């Protein structure tokens, strides 16, 4: 048996791994969706773009579903508070995702230009909206979210939807959008040729540059822009039964920098984010597309890791009732469930990675215009 404090930390890492896995796997097909209307000119080209992810998007989307399920099982209070508090934001993500299954599967089943271009924009929405909203959500987590609990631990969100769209959060949304677009661009460049590849590479490089700028901008804003972090001021017992009302929390200007002061090695995370994006831009421009995709994946891990490390042990700070903030220590499941889910993840995750890799191997190679024209009835 693994002890409770260790399990709590392991699950923070595992949720991080799942989020990064989601951003790398589902992120590249969302990025492709975002780029679709711009890099694909004419129906055949758009079908090339769609078919680079056609066989894989569905499996990739399960990273998202499983990530949600894992948060439900491991951090039920976070799942409950975040999903209900961000009600309209979550619905916007959900409704944007509606466009993907039907967009991919139905688009090319009917020969009609309006029909097809409608679904192309649907795939754009399904690819562009979720990363934007997730970025905005992260931007709000960094500032704290207005919610609290009563004695029954019934959570109440006291803010509005519109206040989620504050300038800092929107900047975080830009980081996220640019990151996912960059990632989709490197993937698309890897799987296509000719003019489509050229446009994809240009899109990826541009998005990488934008991501670096926005990421640095967000960092500076956090440092000098008066955004306060959160810090636990009461004694922490990592082995205690989870009770988010048992602690006291203070806000302070340098709170989100404390972990970086304590563990200078953590600076490698933002460094990886920036260097990865720069490398992705250079590599994709030189048509080293696979390396560009790897560099872009590293950038994603770096950027998400940067935010996670800054906030640790906070997951969802409360701006109105700081003591009720949700942290790694006090919003988790029982040791039995955490242990069980840890082993389940440890067993299945490698299997998933293996057969996903096999599926990509089977479908490897460039998707070409000739291929689409020869497979009118079976290709997406």
């Amino acid at each position, binding site marked *: 048996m693994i002890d409770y404090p260790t399990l709590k930390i392991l699950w923070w890492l595992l949720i991080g791994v799942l989020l990064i896995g989601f951003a790398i796997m589902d992120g590249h097909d969302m990025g492709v969706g975002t780029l679709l209307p711009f890099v694909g000119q004419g129906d055949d080209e758009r079908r090339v773009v769609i078919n680079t992810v*056609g*066989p894989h*998007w*569905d*499996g990739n989307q*399960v990273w998202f*579903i*499983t990530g*949600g*399920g*894992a948060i*439900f*099982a*491991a951090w*039920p*209070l976070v*799942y*409950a*508070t975040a*999903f*209900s508090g961000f*009600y*309209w934001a*979550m*619905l916007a993500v959900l*409704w944007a*995702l509606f466009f993907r*299954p*039907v967009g*991919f*599967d*139905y688009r090319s*089943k*009917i020969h009609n230009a309006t029909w097809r271009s409608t679904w192309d924009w649907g795939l754009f929405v399904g690819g562009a909206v979720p990363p934007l909203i997730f970025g905005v959500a992260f931007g709000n987590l960094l500032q704290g979210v207005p919610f609290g609990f009563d*004695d*029954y*631990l*019934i*959570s*109440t969100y006291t803010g509005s939807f519109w206040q989620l769209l504050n300038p800092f959060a929107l900047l975080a949304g830009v980081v996220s959008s640019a990151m996912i677009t960059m990632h989709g661009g490197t993937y698309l460049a890897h799987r296509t040729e000719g003019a489509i590849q050229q446009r994809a590479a240009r899109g990826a490089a541009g998005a990488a540059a934008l991501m670096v700028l926005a990421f640095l901008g967000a960092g500076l804003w956090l440092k000098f822009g008066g955004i306060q972090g959160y810090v636990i001021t009461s004694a922490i017992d990592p082995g205690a*039964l*989870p*009770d988010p009302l048992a602690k006291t929390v203070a806000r302070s200007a340098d709170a989100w920098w404390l972990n970086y002061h304590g563990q200078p090695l953590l600076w490698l995370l933002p460094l990886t984010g920036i260097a990865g994006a720069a490398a992705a831009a250079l590599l994709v421009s030189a048509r080293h597309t696979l390396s560009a995709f790897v560099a872009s994946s590293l950038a994603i891990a770096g950027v998400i890791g940067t935010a996670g490390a800054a906030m640790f042990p906070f997951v969802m700070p409360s701006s109105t009732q700081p003591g009720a903030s949700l942290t790694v220590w006090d919003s988790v*499941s*029982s040791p*039995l*469930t955490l242990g*069980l889910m840890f082993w*389940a*993840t440890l067993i*299945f995750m490698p299997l*998933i990675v293996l*057969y*996903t890799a096999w*599926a990509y191997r*089977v*479908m490897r190679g460039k998707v070409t215009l000739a291929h689409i024209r020869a497979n*009118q*009835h*079976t290709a997406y």
Partner: protein
Amino acid sequence: MIPEQLVDLSRLQFAATAMYHFLFVPLTIGMVWLLVIMESVYVMTGQVVWKDMTRFWGKLFGINFALGVTTGITLEFQFGTNWAYYSHYVGDIFGAPLAIEGLMAFFLESTFIGLFFFGWDRLTKTQHLMVTLLMAVGTNLSALWILIANGWMQNPVGAEFNWQTMRMEMTDFWAVVFNPDAQAKFVHTVSAGYVTGAMFVLAVSSGYLLKGRDVAFAKRSFRVASAFGLASVLSVIVLGDESGYTVGEAQQTKMAALEAMWETEPAPAGLKLIAGINEQAQKNDWEIEIPYLMGLIGTRSVNKQIPGIHEIKARNRARIVNGITAVTALETLRKHRDDAQARRVLEATKGDLGFGLLLKKYTSDVRQATPDMIDRAMHDTVPRVTPMFWSFRIMVGLGFAMLLLFGLSFWSTLKSDCRARPWLLRAAVLMLPAPWIACELGWVVAEYGRQPWTIYGVLPTHMSVSTLSVNSLYGSLAGFIGFYTVLLIVEVYLMQKFARQGPGSLGTGRYQHEPAHA
């Protein structure tokens, strides 16, 4: 106090989106095995018509699957968005099978469905069959885990309330997995899916046969569907009976309601075929009954009694009164964590804590509950009888009608050419909606029948909701209705377009109605 309107709208939204999702799921669960069977024959015999069958029915499968995926995410989201307190209160148990479903099943089916459609030219015959098989296994495993989660809502075993964390916590994972309710539900539900898949293929093939087109293709499809359908419908009926037998209080309450059994009758009780239900007076004005049958089915004995509604309510009233003590002790403890007396009281009464929480619908301070409130809470503990009674009867009636249809179809295809009996083919076309109606009504019996609880005996529905504004609910409900209406129109349009076009839509040059090449 939680506004009742918020609770009603949250329930309406969940019911609407879950029932909508369940238009697509049974067909996926059933059709995937028909694809496995067809492709297996192709691999064994090498006859290309079986490959075409796999691909054509696979195309329709894909159109349906897309909406299954689309609408499934809604349900996962909704636990968090609309049932936040539920998610917190039981996430420790309920979240685990959901996450395992993702890890073990969704990844499998969703990864391999891509290769199913796009891997025909890149995989060997055997490899492709393996892909189809893994997709089928994934689909059915996902049904297993979601029904383990759902079975726990009906019969919450292997868990205990923890007042410090203010939630239910898992004590025995294997008890949750091998919950008899979950197992009975799983086999009954997937079998119902198999019937749906078989009915779909049978009806569409019958349509081709009636028109005399693509006969070789349609006859084979008809034969596979009738054999698979017959086996499945037998399993639905037999295993449905097994869910009836499953013990536990939730099932007892449901059984009393769906049988309109107000009074406890001497064992073995009779089975009511139909009855004139009078909800107001809480009795039946008239009934037509087969003696003894219900007692035999429900208890597998001649001398065990099945409790009637009045007896169940009287029992629950006592538990509600006891629950007041439990809730009071809990509220004291939440304020004064080291109150040893309150802790002892809660320990002794926590089995009835959920019943005490039923009063929260009527008063925020349960100590102030009046006898009238207690009575109302007591009446809440049994769902309305009329919808239960008739949903169940129509579901069972459709089940037996499909048994007859599949039996005759199977006999017809064995005996001679199935085209010899056009009336049977017409009946098959007409019966197409039957499994969907039966599945939806089965959902009503199981989930409406669980009311007023989300977790039977543990967490009342009205406490489970998120604290949202009523306007948010109107907004989201309107959004869902809008999206789902458009999606349904698009899906049905494509389904009927390709079903009408038939295997010619594959563009192989071997069938009628080939599309013009662009």
